[in-house]
């Protein structure tokens, strides 16, 4: 499986996700409930403010991705990472919110200190 992403056959299937989260947490604060950024309009929506939202989103994505391979989403609207433990992340450079790229993070492995799902919007 490895970096390609399939189901994890090793005893550390969530290691790639853990490494990505560690890289993120060196720059972005994670709340006690396991969410990045501040609360947004929806229950699972989070906001990270930046003078350059696109640059911030790309930085977030690169830290999360590490050496894993990204691919196009089925609908072609974004990029996705499939982690070996079944977790996934999607980067949508353009969303219905003007000038606000978004990254969704769906976590399959419990106990990593991160919420099972969050949608992070990057705004000015």
């Amino acid at each position, binding site marked *: *499986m490895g970096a390609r*992403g*399939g*189901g*994890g*056959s*090793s*005893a*550390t*299937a*969530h290691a790639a996700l853990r490494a990505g989260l560690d890289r993120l947490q060196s720059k972005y604060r994670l709340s006690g*409930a396991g969410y990045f950024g501040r609360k947004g*309009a*929806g*229950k*699972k*929506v989070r906001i990270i403010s930046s003078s350059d939202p696109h640059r911030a989103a790309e930085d977030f994505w690169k830290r999360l991705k590490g050496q894993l391979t990204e691919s196009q989403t*089925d*609908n072609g609207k974004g990029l996705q990472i*499939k982690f070996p*433990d*079944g977790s*996934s992340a999607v980067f949508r450079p353009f*969303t*219905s*919110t003007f000038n606000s790229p978004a990254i*969704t993070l*769906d976590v*399959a*492995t419990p106990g990593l200190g991160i*919420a*099972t*799902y969050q*949608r992070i919007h990057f705004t000015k």
Partner: protein
Amino acid sequence: MNTHSKFHLSDESIRILCSFNGSHWRFATGEPLAEKPRHYFSWNDVIVATDRGEFRINTSLSESDFEGYAEEYAQLAVYPDSKGLAEAQANGHIYFQHAGEQITKVFVFRVGITQIIDGVPTWVYSADHAVIFGLTEGAVAVCKTGHHSAAIDLSFADSVETLELDGRAHEWDWENELGEEYNVVTELIQIGETHTR
């Protein structure tokens, strides 16, 4: 009430599932998850083989904006084919646990969540989260890993009661504002039963 969003199995999917009720389990496909014993994993499809043939349980993502913004939600479906089986066999990703046992009951695990603001329901989300097979001496669940992912978890247990099922309603129902609440209902809906002889 603003919106009622349903992500239920289609009538055709339920018909296919029921048609395999009473058949004998052979195997299911998935990739191993060493950290979760008796659990396997697939990004989109789990193929189930019985003595009456094969069927494929699939998830896909569809967009809805009932929460106030466009979001993708996972939708379960069942198809009467075995697309991807050759690849799974070539990779050794087939599992024969409980082979030979009869499928005696088929269930759908349904999760319903109603958001209530100041006492008024604002939206209802209802989704079929897993398909469950009761076997003569065990049980199998084919379950979405989440509400927004096409990934599937395949798990085996000694009985339907001991299957590990998580509807992940906590993703909504946490740190609620004053006046905000969520009514969560989980149902195990039996869609087929065969009496063993």
